[in-house]
């Protein structure tokens, strides 16, 4: 029987599911062991806002019963996972990191993506900490506390899906589901040293999640390997008409083809903004990935600074609009870090919002032109490794700038045009940092295959962080 209560024995979602399906591993035993680990480590990390012990054990028991009856519980059988606290969980109030939302009715059903991985056999163990209303990059939440980075407890886990990333990094869950509007999967993946996928905008339905910016919100998974990431992503796919932003595309499986040769793709390192706003560690990480992928060229987008500015303005204005009534009636109940940004967003002139959307179309055209010449692009995920909790400034582009709004300078322009991106963790003697592998729209398979190559070469890797 596989023992899973020590980091060295944790073998990943795919291997766990295989063992459970073969009857070699009891899902209940696994979940009990993981709940014990959560009980022991969550006080240090503050990943979870709520641990759903009864639900987890009930679902694990159902998985074991299915196996005993000779039925297949699914490709993610028994795998423990968590969801960011903006995913609906049936019977729970979806707080989205706020206290204002506590007046809402409990969700009547699980979020659609949660339903899909549960149908595949995965076991939900809890909801995870986030920046209030997803408006942040550090998961320092005034109501629920900060999430601590398992790689260094004094540091941020990134945000806004910080709890989700830290839970995977610390071996509390095998995978987590997060959201990414301007970088909220990629930033925590970078800071915590794990793999993350932000799919193409419109690929995965957002049905049953609390929104932030309707035309920038993406959902996606965190995991410990590219194989796991691909398997989870495949279980999540499928159109849903209840999400107006979801695009009706056929399911395009990635896991069976992960190691299939993609030929010799043309890969370019993004230069200009993506070089200047990074630090030496980020640039070195990109170079290490580039050597594996036989990079021969560099590409520059002239409009990146404007694209980032446009995403910044559109996000603030959209958030201000979404929360306008609450800002009018209950501003004192917001996290101060988000309140003032949302109030300012509610005052942005319409002229700037429309200009931001026009800039978006121009940047999209510029990026798509580059994909005529290249199959994949590379850039660091963050301008630095994880900052200290409460650190007021970071160094970006040779200047000291406020930490919170500037951590996403390298992610924001790319999600602005909805590209699929895998973040791979490049470990170092110190703290990890992520590299974005960027593909054309709908080519998650290409980004995942490249990530698998980088992982196989030993450049991108995950190791469970024993919190210290």
């Amino acid at each position: 029987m596989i023992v899973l209560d020590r980091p060295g024995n944790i073998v990943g979602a795919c291997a766990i599911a295989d063992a459970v399906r073969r009857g070699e591993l009891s899902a209940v035993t696994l979940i009990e062991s993981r709940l014990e680990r959560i009980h022991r480590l969550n006080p240090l990390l503050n990943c979870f806002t709520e641990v759903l012990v009864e639900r987890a054990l009930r679902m694990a028991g159902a998985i074991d019963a299915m196996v005993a009856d000779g039925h297949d519980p699914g490709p993610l059988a028994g795998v423990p996972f968590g969801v960011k606290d903006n995913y609906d969980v049936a019977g729970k109030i979806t707080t989205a990191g706020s206290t204002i939302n506590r007046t809402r009715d409990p969700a009547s059903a699980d979020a659609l993506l949660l339903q899909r991985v549960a149908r595949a056999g995965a076991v939900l163990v809890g909801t995870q900490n986030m920046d209030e209303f997803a408006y942040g990059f550090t998961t320092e939440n005034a109501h629920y506390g900060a999430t601590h980075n398992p790689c260094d407890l004094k540091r941020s886990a990134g945000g806004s899906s910080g709890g989700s990333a830290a839970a995977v990094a610390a071996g509390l869950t095998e995978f987590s589901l997060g959201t990414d509007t301007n970088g909220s999967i990629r930033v925590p993946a970078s800071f915590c040293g794990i793999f993350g996928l932000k799919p193409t905008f419109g690929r995965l339905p957002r049905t049953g999640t609390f929104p932030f910016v309707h035309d920038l919100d993406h959902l996606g998974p965190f995991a410990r390997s590219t194989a796991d990431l691909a398997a989870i992503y495949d279980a999540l796919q499928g159109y849903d008409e209840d999400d107006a932003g979801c695009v009706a595309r056929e399911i395009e499986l990635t896991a069976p083809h992960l190691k299939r040769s993609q030929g010799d793709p043309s890969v370019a390192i993004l230069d200009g903004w993506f070089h200047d706003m990074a630090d030496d560690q980020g640039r070195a990480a990109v170079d290490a990935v580039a050597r594996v992928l036989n990079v021969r060229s560099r590409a520059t987008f002239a409009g990146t600074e404007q694209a980032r500015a446009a995403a910044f303005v559109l996000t603030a204005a959209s958030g201000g609009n979404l929360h306008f009534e609450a800002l009018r009636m209950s501003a004192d109940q917001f996290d101060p870090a988000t309140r003032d940004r949302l109030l300012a967003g509610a005052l942005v002139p319409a002229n700037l919002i429309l200009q931001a959307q026009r800039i978006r179309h121009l940047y999209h055209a510029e990026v798509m032109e580059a994909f005529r010449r290249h199959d994949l692009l590379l850039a660091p995920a963050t301008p630095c490794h994880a900052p200290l909790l409460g650190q007021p400034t970071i160094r970006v582009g040779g200047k000291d700038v406020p930490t919170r709004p500037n951590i996403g300078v390298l992610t924001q322009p790319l999600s602005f045009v909805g590209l699929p991106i895998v973040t791979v963790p490049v470990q170092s003697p110190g703290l990890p940092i992520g590299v974005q592998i960027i593909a054309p729209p709908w080519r998650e398979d290409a980004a995942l295959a490249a990530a698998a190559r980088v992982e196989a070469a030993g450049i991108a890797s995950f190791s469970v962080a024993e919190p210290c």
Partner: protein
Amino acid sequence: MIDKNDVELLAKMAGLKIDPAYLQGVTDNLCALLVQGALLMSSPVAPEVEPATVLRL
């Protein structure tokens, strides 16, 4: 740039009343947004570039 008095007026126009304790924070954030906005307005954009997602029915 703008000051707290400007923000109070803008808020009034938008139907918001901002607590005086928050005014400086809001002003600082709006100034940061307007700096980014100035960058957007300085970018040449041809008239035919779409301002919003096109609605296809």
